[in-house]
């Protein structure tokens, strides 16, 4: 506390009068450390050792000084701090000068009081740092310190300063009052007022109001408690109002307000400004990964568009245009990067938002699918992509790339269900791909499409370097078309056929069998023929042909099997007999059932 205890110098003037060189030196030391601490705080984060060291030093120096002198009062000049009229710190450089930093905002005096601790000094440095980082138009150290309201760091900044910022170059506004007139002349009251005053005065006289109620201290006390009690309920309600006011999420409220204003605005010339604000709100929300807010904005815009669809077509069109622009120019293009850094906390909100954005969000939806480890989110992302594909199939198709096989396989999967003609050419794109899994999925999808072109593309897959792909294509193919059948016959007759694996040969025969054609039947019949010198491979091929014929089941096939049943080869014979038995007993399974890839 101040040194003006009873028995000590009572007046600050007398204290100031005895400032000695030691005290002055200490003030100078404090200011040097303060300036250094400010410089360090501007460069380094608060926890940095350099800042921490300066802070400790500053705290110690202040403590030492304030323990002895209670307060430190510094006058602020443009380039210097003065103490008791003596210049104690000077820095002429306006950009980094600490005195100028305070001076420019109209601060005249800075006070530091005993009790000043590390917390307040930290806050002080932080405030200086924050203000110095603001644009000149927004920075004001007086504003900032006022808001901080530090108990032991106070300042004096007279109102005069406002005159340097307000009404510059204009004559000041003022009311001229003729003081003379205020105290000269008369006020003659109207008779009715005079009468009322007379009666009032009489009442006062008669009631003999005495000040008894207003004098005693105990009465004051009881009034205080009575008042407190009677106001308690109001106070509780006011506190609850204040609390709920403080609980408001500014972002959410802002969004609500923007929505209201957008709904209310009728002036066409204001639409562009409103649109800018809406876009800004949206972009800010996305930048902060607050997708719930961004989604909420878009939903509200849809509601407003619908509300004005009939009543105000121009406004509805404006809102629609805003939605489109927001969607198309959405910052979601950058989203995959943020997803990589795991900044997204709420994938449900993100997915809701992306769904609203539509095709422009396709890349981001794909990113969610690829980055999320939650099966539910991955499923939801696929659903969104499928929905997007119904609006803009090309965008979704462009996402399917060999570099992202998992997603591509899923996209191929749901695109195969679409009736879009682009799908076939999209699938054709994988014909020369390298990823086997993708090609298998493409083949499967092509097999499910009842389209001539799909069949032709599958023929292309028959030349694939991978046997599994070729085999899958054979299983998927529907050799109802002449071109397909001819190709299969050509393959089966080709010398290279012999070199194929049994699995592929079986697939080729099965595919031929599916055609039910005479040519296929003839080829299979010929394949049944073996000699004693036939190779082991030839026997196997004949058995495969028997199996295929069984699946074929027309009369010609049965005949061929009967011929085969007379074969010299026991294994071929047995295979044909078994096939015939199956046919006759009706146990022969439908080819279609056995090949689940094919549509009935």
């Amino acid at each position: 506390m101040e040194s003006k205890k009873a028995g000590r110098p009572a007046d600050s003037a007398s204290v100031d009068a005895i400032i000695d060189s030691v005290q002055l030196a200490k003030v100078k030391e404090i200011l040097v450390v303060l300036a250094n601490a400010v410089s360090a705080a501007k460069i380094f984060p608060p926890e940095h050792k350099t800042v921490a060291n300066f802070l400790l030093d500053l705290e110690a120096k202040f403590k030492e000084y304030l323990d002895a002198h209670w307060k430190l009062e510094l006058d602020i000049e443009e380039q210097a701090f003065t103490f008791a009229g003596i210049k104690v710190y000077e820095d002429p450089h306006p950009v980094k000068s600490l005195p100028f930093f305070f001076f420019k905002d109209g601060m005249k005096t800075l006070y530091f009081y005993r009790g000043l601790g590390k917390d307040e000094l930290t806050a002080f440095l932080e405030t200086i740092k924050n203000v110095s980082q603001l644009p000149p138009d927004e920075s004001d150290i007086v504003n900032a310190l006022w808001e901080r309201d530090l108990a032991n760091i106070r300042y004096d900044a007279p109102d005069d300063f406002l005159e340097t910022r307000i009404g510059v170059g204009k004559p000041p506004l003022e009311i001229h009052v003729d003081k003379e007139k205020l105290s000269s002349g008369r006020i003659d009251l109207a008779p009715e007022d005079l009468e009322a005053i007379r009666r009032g005065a009489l009442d006062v006289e008669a009631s003999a109001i005495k000040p008894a109620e207003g004098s005693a201290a105990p009465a004051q006390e009881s009034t205080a408690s009575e008042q407190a009690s009677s106001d308690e309920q109001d106070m509780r309600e006011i506190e609850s109002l204040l609390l709920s006011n403080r609980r408001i999420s500014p972002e959410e409220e802002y969004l609500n307000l923007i929505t209201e204003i957008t709904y209310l605005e009728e002036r066409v010339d204001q639409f562009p400004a409103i649109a800018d604000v809406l876009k800004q709100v949206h972009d800010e929300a996305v930048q902060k990964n607050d997708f719930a807010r961004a989604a909420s904005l878009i939903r509200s815009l849809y509601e407003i568009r619908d509300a004005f669809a009939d009543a105000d077509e121009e406004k509805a069109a404006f809102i629609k245009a805003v939605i489109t622009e927001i969607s198309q120019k959405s910052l979601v293009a950058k989203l995959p990067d943020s997803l990589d850094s795991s900044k997204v906390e709420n994938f449900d909100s993100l997915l809701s938002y992306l769904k609203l954005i539509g095709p422009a969000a396709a890349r981001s939806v794909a990113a969610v699918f690829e980055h999320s480890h939650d099966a539910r989110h991955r499923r939801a992302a696929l659903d969104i992509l499928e929905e997007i594909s119904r609006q803009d199939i090309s965008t979704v198709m462009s996402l399917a790339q060999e570099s992202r096989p998992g997603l591509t396989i899923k996209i191929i999967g749901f695109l195969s269900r679409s009736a879009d003609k682009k799908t076939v050419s999209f699938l054709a794109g994988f014909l020369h791909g390298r990823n086997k899994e993708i090609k298998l999925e493409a083949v499967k999808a092509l097999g499910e499409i009842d389209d001539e072109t799909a069949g032709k593309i599958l023929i292309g897959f028959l030349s694939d370097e991978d046997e599994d792909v070729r085999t899958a294509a054979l299983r998927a193919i529907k050799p109802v078309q002449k071109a397909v059948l001819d190709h299969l016959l050509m393959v089966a007759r080709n010398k290279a056929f012999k070199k194929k694996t049994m699995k592929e040969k079986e697939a080729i025969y099965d595919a031929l069998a599916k055609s039910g054609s005479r040519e296929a039947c003839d080829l299979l019949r010929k394949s049944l023929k073996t000699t004693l010198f036939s190779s082991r491979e030839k026997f196997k091929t004949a058995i495969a042909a028997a199996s295929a014929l069984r699946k074929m089941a027309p009369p010609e096939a049965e005949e061929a099997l009967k011929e085969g049943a007379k074969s010299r080869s026991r294994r071929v014979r047995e295979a044909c007999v078994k096939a015939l038995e199956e046919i006759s007993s009706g146990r022969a399974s439908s080819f279609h059932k056995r090949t689940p890839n094919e549509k009935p």
Partner: protein
Amino acid sequence: MKNPEGQKISPEKARALHHLAVEIVIRLNVVLKSARIYEPNNLLFERQISLLFRLIHQALTESGQAVFAARQSTLFFNNIRLKAGFSNYQFFKFILEEFKKKEIGGIRFEPGLGDGDLKLLAMVLAKVEEKPGQIFQKLVAELEARGISRIAMEKILPSDIAPSREKYAAKVFFLGVTHLEEAFEAESGKEKIKLSTTRRLMQSIFNHIVENESFVQGLTNIKNFHEYTLNHSMNVCILAIALGRRLGLDRNELVDLGISAFFHDFGKLDTPREILEKPDKLDDREREIIEKHPYQGAGKLVQFRELKNLPLHAVHVALEHHIKEDKSGYPRSFKKQSVNLFSKIVKIVDFFDAITTKRVYRAKVFTREEALSLMLEQSGREFHPILLREFVKMMGVYPVGSLVALSTGELGLVVENNPDQRLLLRPRVKLITDPKGNKVDGAVVDLSEVDTVTNRYSRTIVKTLDPEKYDVRVADYFVARAG
């Protein structure tokens, strides 16, 4: 927040300390008032001393120190800024005024303090009178003479006792009007509004309200100066900050509230002047146009949002200040269910200032007390009942600026309400005529003053009068006071 040993204290402990400090303020209030009336050996007085001692002792035990400091009209206890609520506002006001009168910047109670020390302090504070500039010295000398060693005092800062603060308050008022005009001009020319200056202006208004609320309230009697909307917005801003302060808003909230009130009619920039000033009743089309100003203002403010200093509340207030408590009014809402607290506050003060201002289209101008009565009739429908009640309490039975006839036959203007809730009928009044009706530059009299001969109040209000009727320009008296 730290204790004297430098250890951090929890928010709960800080709250408890604040509560204790407020209790000390209230008790100190009673003690100082009692000391003026009673002899030192009076039992009632001694009881109050004992209660105060117990509280200070508790603070010393719990915190190791008990230090009051008054800085820039703010009271601190052990480095905690004390916040006056609306129920204890009068006690804070009294203590701060006492400190200022006695040139005290702070009082420190030290361990070892006895109740005898407190009693002597109270007596010294009650009795010491001296010329300004010498009171503090005298006080310290008295304490020393009585051997009080456990109480130390700090002298008030020179800036806290700067003379003629009223002059600055009036200057700030006019600067406010100018600033708003510049903001309106900037908006029409699409220049940048200087919101950091607006914020600074609000802080000044707040500081002046804290220092001399009555005078600043008195300035709101300035009407139709320069341009109605500008003057009105400034008045609304002052009254909103004053009401917000009573309600317990913190200082940053008060600045936000002030800015919100300041810009509440920003949308009127787009309303044609011929409609704003039409003397006749507005037709449907004109009414429709004028009812657009809330959202048009909100729309404009939203466009300033990139300027970080504009509080979101300002947009709320611009949009909602014509929505009534029963949710009627305008504009119609799209989705919004609730009205912001600041909008409710501004609605009250906006209405009050509007109906007490003479306008070409307004058949009747209400006096300030008539306006309060009218508003109370609409409590719950038009206004939030509790907020309105607090506003009425703040304005008092005779709001500052009321023209009153006294039992002595003199006429006067109310310049300050009595902070004692029981004495609301006895404000301070500036006498403007003698009993015969001659205008005078009279004294400011306290209507709670008692004539020692008759033991009756010297003056009592017997009637309020309409200043318009007698061509009394209330604002002139306040402006004149500012020099």
